[in-house]
């Protein structure tokens, strides 16, 4: 599929701010699943851009606005081609060898440790999570292929909580979302990641976009979030726990990380009075012919 994505973020400040530094993780990735045809970012006030690739391989575009301002707009426009794939078309590793396959993958690439070891309020320890949930904690049967276990986990997540618009704050804790019985796509992704890590499977957070024709959450379109787990023989496979779906060519990935904090689309620091301004985000995603 070919999509045109536009993503606008407006921040307004009651009093002027200055020396404003901003980092954006907004440019879609180019990887085996998708290719970026075009990508441009503009800001108001205008600024000079620089970029680098962060630790997780995300492209970061950054800029600063030194002079006083009380409004900051960033606009991304990008065209992306996604590839149709069959997520099951890979040479599976026998269940008895899967954990060894993962251990070897981690040994070869030590940064992969992060996706197993990382714990935070967003992706807590299994123990902390188990205390919060009322249903049985999912188990991974050693004789079962890991992909099957992960698919069961995918179906299990929506039993823990339901989708509630705006029910949790961005970067809130997963345990509090579970206790409240409702969350947004980030919480669904974090819950999936937390359980997968407790099984020693590398799992990471993905921020991106989902075709509004597929999305069932039906509200105003914004960024979406899902999880990726490292599957022996296959590599990273995307799991959208919000929709109980494996990701496909209706998904456009932007940034990955250990949790949503690493993959935040916009991060800034300024001088001036902060009053907890919330950004106004508008996203459109149109299929191109």
């Amino acid at each position: 599929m070919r999509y045109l994505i536009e993503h606008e973020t407006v921040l307004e400040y009651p009093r002027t701010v200055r020396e404003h530094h901003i980092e954006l993780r907004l440019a879609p990735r180019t990887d085996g699943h998708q290719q970026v045809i075009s990508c441009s970012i503009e800001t108001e006030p205008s600024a000079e851009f620089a970029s680098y690739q962060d630790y997780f391989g995300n492209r970061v575009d950054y800029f600063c606005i030194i002079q006083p301002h009380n409004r900051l707009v960033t606009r991304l426009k990008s065209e992306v081609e996604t590839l149709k794939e069959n997520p099951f078309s890979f040479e599976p590793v026998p269940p008895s060898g899967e954990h060894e396959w993962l251990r070897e993958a981690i040994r070869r690439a030590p940064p992969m440790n992060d996706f197993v070891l990382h714990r935070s309020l967003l992706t807590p320890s299994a123990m902390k999570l188990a205390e919060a949930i009322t249903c049985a904690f999912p188990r991974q049967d050693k004789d079962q292929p890991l992909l099957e276990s992960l698919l069961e986990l995918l179906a299990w997540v929506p039993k823990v909580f339901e989708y509630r618009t705006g029910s949790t704050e961005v970067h809130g804790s997963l345990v509090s979302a579970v206790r409240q019985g409702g969350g947004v796509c980030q919480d669904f992704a974090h819950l999936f990641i937390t359980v997968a890590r407790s099984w020693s499977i590398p799992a990471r957070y993905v921020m991106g976009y989902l075709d509004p024709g597929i999305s069932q959450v039906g509200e105003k379109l914004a960024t979406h979030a899902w999880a990726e787990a490292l599957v022996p023989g296959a590599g990273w496979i995307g799991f959208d726990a919000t929709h109980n779906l494996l990701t496909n060519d209706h998904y456009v990935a932007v940034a990955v990380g250990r949790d949503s904090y690493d993959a935040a689309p916009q991060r800034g620091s300024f001088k001036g009075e902060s009053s907890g301004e919330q950004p106004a985000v508008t996203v459109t995603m149109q299929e191109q012919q």
Partner: protein
Amino acid sequence: MNNVGIPGSKPRTPYHEFYADDFTPRDHYRLLWDHIKATGNSALEAKAHESQLALQAEGVTFTVYGESEEGIERIWPFDLIPRIITAAEWVKIESGLKQRVRALNLFLGDLYGEQRIIKDGVIPPELIYQGRDFRREIVGIVPPRGIYTHVSGIDIIRDEKGEFLILEDNLRTPSGVSYMIENRVIERRILPEFFNKYRVRRVEHYPSLLLAALRALSPRGTAHADIVLLTPGIYNSAYFEHTFLAKEMGVELAEGRDMVVVNDIVYLKTTTGLQRVDVIYRRIDDDFLDPLVFRSDSSLGIAGVINAWRAGNVAIVNAPGSGIADDKAVYPYVPDIIRYYLGQEPILNNVPTFQMTNETDREYVFDNMERMVIKAVSESGGYGMLMGPSSTPASRKEFMALVQENPRNYIAQPVVYLSRHVCYMDGELEARHLDLRPYVIYGEDIEVVPGGLTRVALRKGSLVVNSSQGGGSKDTWVLAE
């Protein structure tokens, strides 16, 4: 950088730096001993008084926290009887520290690069990936010439046999060097005749060594090296030192709010406009250095400075991310780190250390808590530790729970008896325990300043030397060949 002992229940006698036995001084102390005997206590009293006046006049102070919110400024406690290190002893310390600092810098370059040491199974990945001070934000950035720790302060103690052991590496913003110099200034004034007789090596050139190392890092070349000492401000316990070093080096002393980054260039805001900054000697922790990438609530740092550093437009000293190499949980692996990168045996050994992530070690420590020091890995200055000998059953139980909850966060060491030295205390010469922090500058090459800060536990029997916990200090004389 702390150690404890069990007064009154000593299995072995601590090493005495000054005396060979009850009646005889060691050879290198004889000259001083003869003088003290000849002039008597009243002369010492006069010298002690003189040194006290000089410290007050110079305004040499430090700040103690905990007693009140704001901290209390105190006159630096100085003991007039110098600690003497022979040329032969110094050769070992110097070569051992050079070896250690070289290996630790190679280690940092590897951690923030290929991570061969993890791939080769020499250190467990959990150690790094669960370490609070492994900074993912700087992975892939290579600082000039691969040097991370331009300034190190390494704590050395002496065990019962007189062997020098490394107690702790301080690779972030080690402090105390100003007191090393002030101690020397005072000592030269009150015992001037001994400096030639003893052929004491100089330490006063430290600021010029540091300045040369900083200048050499300027991205615009040494001809254009505008240097700033970045301080967290007047409430920091080391603020005296920040002003001292800035003045001695002739560089600007500034806080984060005095600087701004514009399109990857760092500037100091001056009365005549923005002035480019080439080198930042920062005395604030990574956490507070850049609110854009580290702690977003920090108002002490400079937003955008990490991106300016990545772009190669500014040097930051010590390099961000250095803290993972002096993490106390990494410390037990330093001998292996030296072997791995240099193919050499460590010249200076570690204090034996138990790792709380290891179940056998942990059980042993829990069974012997009264004889152990347990330390939180990311604390320093004598905070976050259990001193076994003086602990209560309740505090031991509390620490046991803390260790079990987060074993990666703790290490334990058997109590080591720090060596002792004579000190002039209220009219008497008395033995007190001490350690040594030499300073290592990594510029063109690695240089260890011959001397250091000798810290003394002023309370009788105490082995806690931190100035924040009631420690004092001595001038440290390293003798020329």
